């Protein structure tokens, strides 16, 4: 068959419907969401691009196995009410996933249309139906199984924990989520900025779970306020640990404790959870750098850089030790960052921070890197170029070079087995840990990954917990 001649082929070539976005010059100075969302017409038009494959690759590419052709078909027909209910059967947090999933490497990466052109905008459609339900929906809840009388404790109200809570409440169990912070959401709240994921949406997704019957107890530092064994004594029959990877990594180079060097965790927590960008209307301050350097090349680095810009920086430079191709950030984030004027300093690594007599950061010394042989991650290892040191000026440096396992709970629970990096050992097929009645999933098992992978791990664990509650360990 000759390529590109059949009427079917022509239909495939129809371009993806772009989601409108705020202008880069405008949005770089505000905290409003960047993409503004589809209209119902746009959603129907985009949904019509889906070929409704018999063996859809997109579903295989989704860590929680959403019936993607199914919900898109309903959207195409304009039945948004049923469309979102279809998504809910596999995903309790669609408004979030539609916004923050790396669709290009998951569902959309497997879309048949991607072979010849642009894949169906699955993420945009998921976001649209979730937003439509919030704005216009009946609020009717999905069906819930009869009460089983079993009680489950979920530790950590992030994506993994909320997924477990959503799944198990629908299966008829009693679920309480314990959260160390004063508000639920985990990384969705403290990590991802308002302009990428409005906090109102996180609050509404949590509220949806609460309406289903999930109890959320904030300010509960499990391991300190209450231990796992005490939760069992209180009558919880199963515990899920979705603690996240909340230990910031630093560069361990001279001058790191100068004022003006912050972990991305601290910077983003101040900005997002504490809403310090509204200071002094709120009481938590945040350093407003004029000349900002962000270290790292992931989503957190992009979020930090774009936040700095919105807090009034004249210049924001992102220093990353590998090349553009190895950047772990979601493509859309790196693209948005560049559009807004963030400068990328690639193949560059800092060697020391420079400060003044008051202990405040004034600059840093960096060295040029080149790519050598591939390392354990399969990416080419960056090696320093001798004698290529140079200085950068900066008054704020945000360190976004990854996170590790927070030992707060594991150190107080010796019968949980952890690996050499401090992550909890859990069976990848069901999430079971070495402690009876305890499951774990998300970043505390795998190290920092994505929201959707944490949700996938939550889904797996929830199925296993349900099995255990009904049939035994």
């Amino acid at each position, binding site marked *: 068959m000759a390529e590109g001649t059949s009427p079917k082929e022509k239909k495939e070539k129809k371009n993806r419907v772009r989601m409108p976005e705020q202008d880069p010059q405008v949005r770089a100075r505000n905290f409003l969401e960047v993409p503004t969302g589809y209209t119902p017409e746009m959603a129907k038009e985009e949904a019509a691009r889906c070929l409704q494959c018999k063996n859809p690759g997109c579903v295989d590419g989704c860590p929680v196995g959403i019936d993607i052709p199914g919900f898109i078909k309903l959207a195409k027909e304009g039945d948004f009410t049923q469309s979102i209910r279809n998504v809910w059967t596999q995903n309790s947090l669609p408004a979030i996933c539609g916004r923050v999933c790396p669709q290009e490497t998951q569902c959309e990466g497997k879309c048949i249309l991607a072979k010849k052109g642009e894949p169906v905008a699955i993420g945009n459609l998921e976001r649209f139906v979730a937003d439509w339900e919030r704005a216009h929906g009946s609020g009717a809840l999905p069906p819930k199984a009869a009460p089983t009388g079993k009680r489950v404790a979920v530790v950590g109200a992030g994506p993994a924990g909320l997924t477990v809570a959503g799944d198990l409440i629908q299966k008829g169990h009693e679920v309480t989520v314990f959260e160390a912070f004063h508000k639920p959401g985990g990384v969705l709240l403290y990590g991802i900025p308002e302009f990428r994921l409005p906090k109102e949406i996180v609050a509404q997704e949590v509220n949806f779970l609460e309406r289903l019957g999930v109890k959320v107890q904030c300010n509960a530092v499990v391991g300190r306020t209450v231990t796992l064994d005490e939760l069992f004594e209180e009558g919880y029959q199963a515990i899920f640990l979705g603690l996240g990877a*909340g*230990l910031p990594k630093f560069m361990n180079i001279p001058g790191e404790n100068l004022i003006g060097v912050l972990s991305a965790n*601290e910077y983003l927590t101040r900005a997002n959870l504490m809403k310090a960008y509204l200071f002094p209307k*709120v009481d938590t*301050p945040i350093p407003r750098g004029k000349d900002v350097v962000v270290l790292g090349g992931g989503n957190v680095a992009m979020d930090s850089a774009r936040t700095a810009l919105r807090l009034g920086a004249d210049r924001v430079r992102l220093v990353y030790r590998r090349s553009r191709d190895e950047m772990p950030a979601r493509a859309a984030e790196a693209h948005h960052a560049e559009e807004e004027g963030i400068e990328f300093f690639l193949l560059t690594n800092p060697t020391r921070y420079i400060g003044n007599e008051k202990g405040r950061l004034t600059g840093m010394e960096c060295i040029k890197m080149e790519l050598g042989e591939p390392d354990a991650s399969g990416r080419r290892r960056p090696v320093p170029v001798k004698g290529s040191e140079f200085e950068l000026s900066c008054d704020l440096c945000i360190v976004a070079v990854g996170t590790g396992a927070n030992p707060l709970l594991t150190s107080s629970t010796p019968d949980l087995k952890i690996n050499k990096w401090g992550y909890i050992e859990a069976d990848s097929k069901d999430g079971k840990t070495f402690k009876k009645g305890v499951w774990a999933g998300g970043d505390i098992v795998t190290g920092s990954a994505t929201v959707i992978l944490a949700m996938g791990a939550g889904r797996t664990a929830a199925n296993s917990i349900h099995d255990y509650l009904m049939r035994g360990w």
Partner: protein
Amino acid sequence: MFKIVKREEMSQGTVVLNEIEAPLIAKKAKPGQFVILKANETGERIPLTMAYTDPEKGIIAVIYQVVGKSTALFKTLKVGEGYQDVIGPLGKPTHVENIGKVVCVGGGTGVAVMHPITRAMKQAGNHVIAIIGARTKDLLILEDFMRAASHELHVCTDDGSYGRHGFVTHALKDILDKEKIDQVVAIGPVPMMKFVSKLTQEYNVPTLVSLNPIMVDGTGMCGGCRVSVGGKTQFACVDGPEFDGHKVDFDELMRRLQAYCEEEKMCHNEFCMLEESWHK
């Protein structure tokens, strides 16, 4: 809400005591541990080491000095009102064992934190000498409590208005010159802890200090509270708050405490102006 059940002003209103209903924390808390308090929706998370707890009544007590916007806001909270959020107990408890003769040095509001540690040291069988100090007599707190918690109490004021005229380090030096001390615990303003540690190093007496750097979450997540101890970076919230005073880089800590001084001024001034306008 975490209700305030008792409230007292000390030191001419510059220091405030709150007893707060927090049964889960009261049950778990040990001397040396801290809580994080947040007054309301827009409030800041402020770490304060607990002064005492009553597990039976489900009460924890904090004593704080009014220094900025957030503590000024705390001060406006009356009995029956409360904190929106109280998180804890956080940090490692003080290591208490019977080692012989212990000197507990408390300065300013540090005396409040020193009190439960002093009592625990005495209960563990140590001979406990306590030294407390303040700038002037009216600022001195918990003298009677500290007398009861120790075997002997020395009181100093910087201006000589009460007790011994001089700094706590002077009283400590006299003791160190006179007898063999096995352990010193010092809690108070950073310069006080620095000079106590400097002094005890000369006498080779192990010294614990309790640090209160700027922090956000208090669970090891933000790294804002990092301090250099023996050349290594530690997080005060999870690795501390108590550290070996001979190894702490106090000068760095003092500088880091100034990180937000401009913002604090701005915020506090605005709050004071608001308060004034209410009164008018």
